[in-house]
């Protein structure tokens, strides 16, 4: 599955679970990757770190691979060797009132790891 399909699937999934309430500020989710881990970061658009929430890791076909807790510093770490990342990963963060996602594409992993 290429990045385009991952994105389409992720957008569809996100729209399906998006809360309907009005949100004064949004959740910003980002994930960086190196050869060992994916580091997930979540903060609100007002700059405050999201101190708690569920982190769901899905593969490129939208299959749930792992669920983690967001740390008090707004981060979570996913060891790369613990997941099948060949088709990319979708990282969803849900704080209860807010949720968002970041897509780690195969190109992101290749570019930052060189493998």
């Amino acid at each position, binding site marked *: 599955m290429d990045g385009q399909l991952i*994105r389409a699937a992720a*957008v569809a999934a996100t729209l399906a679970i998006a809360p309907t309430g009005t949100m004064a500020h*949004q959740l*910003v989710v*980002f994930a*960086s990757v190196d050869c060992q881990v994916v580091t997930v970061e979540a*903060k609100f*658009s007002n*700059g405050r770190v999201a101190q708690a929430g569920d982190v769901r890791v899905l593969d490129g076909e939208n299959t749930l691979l792992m669920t983690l807790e967001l740390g008090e510093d707004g981060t979570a770490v996913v060891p790369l060797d613990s997941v099948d990342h060949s088709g990319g990963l979708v990282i969803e963060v849900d704080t209860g009132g807010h949720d*968002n996602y*970041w*897509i780690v594409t195969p190109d*992101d992993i290749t570019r930052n790891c060189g493998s």
Partner: protein
Amino acid sequence: MKQYLVTASFAALMAATPALAHYGMIIPNDPMISQEDGRSVDLTMSFSHPFELDGMMLDKPAAFSVTHEGNTTDLLGGLQDATVMEDQGYTLEYRLDRPGTYVFAMEPKPYWEPAEDAFIIHYTKTYVTAYGDDEGWDTELGLKTEVVPLTKPFGLWEHNVFQGIIKMDGEPVPYAEVEVEYYNEDLSATVPDELMITQTVKADADGVFTYAPPSSGWWGFAALNTADYTILEEGSGEEKAVELGAVIWVHFEEWTGN
């Protein structure tokens, strides 16, 4: 021959028209880069009359940088030669590694404008946000002169007001004159009078100006002041005045409601 005469007359008229405003330009392919857009932004730099799409020579700038999360990176070496509005400009593809606001800034070399008997230096900025994070949208770079945004300089609807503070050497410039011009990319905008090509507003006593554009698209705001120094013009051997421009480019989005 008749057509030539008409063309020549029009060219002479345009050349003699003093109303054309010069603008340094930094135009990204998108001021709000989402993760679906990719991982980089494409920038186009020029010096031009943006309403008429009339380009001018932009020498390799004296400085070109990006500031993100308080860190400034020199990008001058990455500029690629390009033809913009049929004249010398530059392009740059810049990778956006993290979320947040990226402030791209250009300090051109002094441009000698014989018609104004002065040099022109436009300190030009454009703000680009990445991956849904607007933190840093009000960043002040500390340039010689700059527009410090009071309104988030992206994600604006057409007709929204844009406000900024004109600063020179870090201090507000009371009643500074600000020229406003539309980047008429497809030449679809026309004017009933050439006076309307460049709109003009003045800042208040605190250096704050306000403008609401009539349409979506890129709008340039240029606060022009005379420098407290001169530059030697080699042709005449005389010291000449320097016009310092604080330029910011802001994109307004088309309203999608009824």
